[in-house]
């Protein structure tokens, strides 16, 4: 196990290097000039060039790349070209809203989707099954922002149960935090619920046809016992896989959700930085999200051995 772990962690290094090179080249080989954004509407071409020089953007690409990687290895993510703040501070500032929303979305999704999937598998072919399946296909057939607008209209404007937008830190005002987190989490969860419900149903159906489950049934165990003791446990593995691969989807959804609900999270920071050509911030953020993605999938792989005793590393 430790050797496997080490191997997996080492395998992440080339992946991150690919990400680093790709992002760097994408940013530098395409048109775009942070100096122009920095200087505003009335700048003259001369003034732009002076600002470019002072930002080090006139140096050769290789020099800039080595400078960046060198600093990274020392834990220095650089400074935002636009706001002059250390990137690490910007990220630390904006990370918690995103993390909280992601956690709530995940919990909400699993809590809603797994029972839905179980129900559908259990009542396979019935109207319940059809309903669940239709709902789940619908879940990833509607753009996230439309779902967001509909939820706002219903719960915040017509019913006035919840605030329209914003974010409060849970440590400052827990009730305020919870009230503001519900709608964004529900919006994001719509895709996730769809995915997980389908996966739960499919893998349960698989497992229910396995020999050992048939044996358990033949032994006279009740349906419920079969379902919970044997089937569900084994169905957990593919469900975890979906959570891992769906993580990328979650990040994409976060970008939109944060805009719709005005949450000051990492998604908006990334989009804003892309539009502002704030190179150090974009580089750090894409590297970071990629790193988290790799890590989450590593953890999920490891969790397989806990969930399914047949899998050993």
């Amino acid at each position, binding site marked *: 196990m430790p050797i496997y772990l080490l191997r997996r962690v080492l395998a992440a290094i080339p992946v991150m290097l690919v*990400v680093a090179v790709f992002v760097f080249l994408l940013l530098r080989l395409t048109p775009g000039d942070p100096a122009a954004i920095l200087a505003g509407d009335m700048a003259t071409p001369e003034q732009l060039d002076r600002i470019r020089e002072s930002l080090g953007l006139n140096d050769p690409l290789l020099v800039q790349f080595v400078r960046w990687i060198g600093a990274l290895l020392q834990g220095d993510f650089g400074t935002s070209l636009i706001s002059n703040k250390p990137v690490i501070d910007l990220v630390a500032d904006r990370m918690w809203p995103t993390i909280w929303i992601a956690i709530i979305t995940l919990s909400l999704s699993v809590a809603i989707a797994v029972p839905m999937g179980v129900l559908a598998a259990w009542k396979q072919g019935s109207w319940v099954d059809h309903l669940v399946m239709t709902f789940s296909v619908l879940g990833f057939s509607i753009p996230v922002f439309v779902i967001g607008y509909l939820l706002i209209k219903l719960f915040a404007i017509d019913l006035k149960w919840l605030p329209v937008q914003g974010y409060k830190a849970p440590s400052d005002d827990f009730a305020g935090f919870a009230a503001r987190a519900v709608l964004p989490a529900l919006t994001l969860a719509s895709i996730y619920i769809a995915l997980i419900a389908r996966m739960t149903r499919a893998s349960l159906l698989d497992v229910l046809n396995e020999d050992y489950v048939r044996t358990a049934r033949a032994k006279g165990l009740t349906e419920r016992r079969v379902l919970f003791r044997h089937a569900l446990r084994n169905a957990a593995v593919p469900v975890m896989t979906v959570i891992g691969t769906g993580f*990328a989807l979650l990040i994409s959804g976060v970008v939109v959700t944060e805009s719709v609900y005005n949450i000051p999270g990492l998604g908006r920071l990334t989009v804003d930085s892309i539009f502002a050509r704030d190179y150090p911030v974009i580089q750090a953020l894409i590297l970071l999200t990629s790193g988290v993605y790799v890590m989450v999938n590593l953890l999920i792989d490891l969790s397989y051995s806990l969930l399914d005793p047949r899998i050993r590393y």
Partner: protein
Amino acid sequence: MAEKTMRGAFPLSTRQLAARVGAAPIIAAVVLSLIILAAIFAPFIAPHDPILQDPVMRLKPPSGDFPLGTDNFGRDLLSRVIYGARVSLVIGIGVTIMAVVLGLAIGLVSGFFRTADAIIMRIMDGLMAMPSVLLAIAIVSLMGASIWTVMAAITIPEIPRVVRLVRSIVLTAREEPYVEAAIALGTSMPRVLWRHLMPNTFAPLTVQATYVCASAILTEAILSFLGAGVSTETPTWGNIMAEARIYFRLKPMLILWPGLALSLCILSINLLGDAARDILDPRMGKRED
């Protein structure tokens, strides 16, 4: 991620087939055909030029002349939704073709040649690790927003998924006796790849392709929403919605009509994908995203 594969289609009678997939795919096929027909014959169906502006007629409610009303430039919403089908479908289908063709080629090479495999898969892992929408925004924003860059931006993050699928199939298939025999007999590599390995990928790729297509159409809408999409001079369902989003409370239909078209289209494609999967491999039962 264990992609289960299938070899050879199940010989099913029409009745068995209908029993297995139900009525939904048939309805989906009809809806999708209608959308495709509307897209092809847009110039004949649409009552107006979708980009012709008339400031006096802006934001008008539905009327005989403008069955769905007009947008904030006084353009006919119905015509825009009909023309929008064109671009959205072109993006969906274009991305699918590019992702499948490139993914298939890279996946075949990667699955077959051990040396290339290590490098290709590291690059694919890297691409896959980057959040796709962010990558797409970056590409569109940096390269300039045309329909081609939008397609490229959506395609690039889709490729690794296809590569992984193809590669896993090839890895299994190349251990098969008939493939080993072909190699032993000195059949040329391209021929082995082309004749023996590629056919194995068709069924799972068909299923995967439907999901790629649906997700491409959705991603285009999200890019438009975030301000990194195609110009509204070329209507797409996504940019019609994105442009109208500030009118959601006053004129919700400006968003709901294109939204309905988009959702129906994606729903149909997804249902067809599910049906294809059920027919081609009832054991596959899994969606890899």
